[in-house]
C-alpha cells in the first residue's frame, strides 16, 4: 500500500501522463504498482488508484480498463517513480555538457555592482569572483553548477547550454535496454486471449 505522502504524488504524475495523450480512454484506472513476485489485483475496488512498493528492484504498474477488460502491465528494472518523473519531465532541458560548464569564465564583481546570485539570493560582495554564463548572467560557481548538471538552461533567461549529445545517446540506450513493457490484453471473461508481447519501450510508444 502506498504511504500517504507518496500516493498523491504518484497519482498526479499519472494524471499528467494520461492527460497528455488519448491513452486516458484506454487506461482510465491504474490498479496497482507492485514488485515482480507480488502481483496485485483488486478488481472490486477500482477507486483505489495506486499502490506501491518502493523497495523492490523490479517494479510493475498494472493498468486496467474495466470497460474493455483490457490490461497493460508496465514493468521495469529501475525505480518506477524516477521513470515516471522522467516521462513527465520530458520537456525539461537536459543537463549542460561538462565542457560547457568548465568553459564559463570567472569574472570579478565590480566595486559598485548591485545585484545578487538569484540561486542563493546572496547579494554580491565587491571583488567576489563568480561565473558568467554565455548569456552574461552571473552566479556563484557552486550555485550554477548544481543547477546546470540537472538542467542546462540559464535560471534567469533560459538560455540553453550545449548538451553532451554522446552522453545523452548512451543514457537513452541504457534506459531502453533496462525498460520493457509487457502488454497483456484480455477481452471478455469467457474467452481470454493471453496476448503477451514483449516490446522494448521508447517514450513515444508508451505515450501513444
Amino acid at each position: 500500500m502506498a504511504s500517504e505522502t507518496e500516493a498523491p504524488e504518484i497519482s498526479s504524475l499519472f494524471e499528467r501522463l494520461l492527460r497528455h495523450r488519448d491513452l486516458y480512454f484506454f487506461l482510465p484506472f491504474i490498479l496497482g504498482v507492485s514488485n515482480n513476485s507480488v502481483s496485485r489485483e483488486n478488481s472490486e475496488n477500482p477507486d483505489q488508484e495506486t499502490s506501491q512498493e518502493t523497495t523492490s528492484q523490479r517494479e510493475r504498474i498494472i493498468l486496467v480498463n474495466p470497460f474493455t477488460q483490457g490490461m497493460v502491465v508496465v514493468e521495469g528494472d529501475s525505480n518506477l517513480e524516477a521513470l515516471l518523473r522522467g516521462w513527465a519531465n520530458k520537456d525539461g532541458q537536459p543537463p549542460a555538457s561538462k565542457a560547457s560548464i568548465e568553459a564559463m569564465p570567472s569574472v570579478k564583481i565590480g566595486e559598485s555592482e548591485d545585484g545578487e546570485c538569484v540561486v542563493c539570493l546572496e547579494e554580491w560582495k565587491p571583488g567576489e569572483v563568480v561565473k558568467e554564463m554565455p548569456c552574461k548572467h552571473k552566479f556563484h560557481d557552486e550555485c550554477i553548477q548544481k543547477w546546470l548538471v540537472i538542467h542546462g538552461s540559464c535560471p534567469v533567461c533560459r538560455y540553453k547550454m550545449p548538451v553532451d549529445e554522446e552522453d545523452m545517446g548512451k543514457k537513452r540506450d541504457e534506459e531502453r535496454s533496462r525498460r520493457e513493457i509487457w502488454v497483456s490484453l484480455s477481452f471478455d471473461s469467457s474467452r481470454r486471449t493471453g496476448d503477451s508481447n514483449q516490446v522494448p519501450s521508447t517514450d513515444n510508444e508508451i505515450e501513444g
Partner: protein
Amino acid sequence: MIDFARVQKELQECSREKDSSGIRVSPKSDNLARLTGIIPGPLGTPYEGGSFEIDITFADGYPFEPPKMKFVTKVWHPNISSQSGAICLDILKDQWSPALTLKTALLSVQALLSAPEPDDPQDAVVAQQYLREYQTFVGTARYWTESFAKASSLGVEEKVQRLVEMGFPDGLVRSTLEAVGGDENLALEKLLSS
C-alpha cells in the same frame, strides 16, 4: 538539502511585500520545509473576494527542484483538481527555475486563476464545463469561492445566531444567508424586506 538560508530570505521578502502583493506566506511549524501560502482571488474573476490557502512543501533539492504546491481551499478551475487541489502549472514542474521564488511562484498561481488554460486541464470535468457552458462554469466557480474561500463562510454559525437573536426564524436565516453568499448585512436587508 533544502537551502533554508534562502527560504528565510524568501519569507522575509514575502512579509515585506505582503501589502502590495496581497500574498501571505507563513511557516506551518518550526520546520521551514512546510509553509502555508494565501493568495487573494484576482479582481474581475469568479475568485474575486476569496482567500485561497495553498500548502507548500519543499523537496529536498530546493531551490533546484520546484516547491510542491496544492490548494487546500476548494476551488473550481480547469487547471486545479476540484478533488485534491493539485495544480497544473508548468513552472511548478518541468519549467521550474531556481531564479523563481515563493513569491513569483504564488503570483503565477494567482495569474493562473485569472487565465485558465482549459486545453491543458488538471480537472477534465471543470475544463469541459469551461469550454462548453462558460456561464455555468462562472456560476459554479463563484459559488465555490463564496462557499469555501471567504472568511465569511467560516463564521456562519455566529451569523446565524446573531440574526436569530434579532427574531428571525433559524431556517429562514440559513437559507437567506446561503442565497446572498454568506454576507450578513445583505442577509439582514433581505430578511427585513421580505
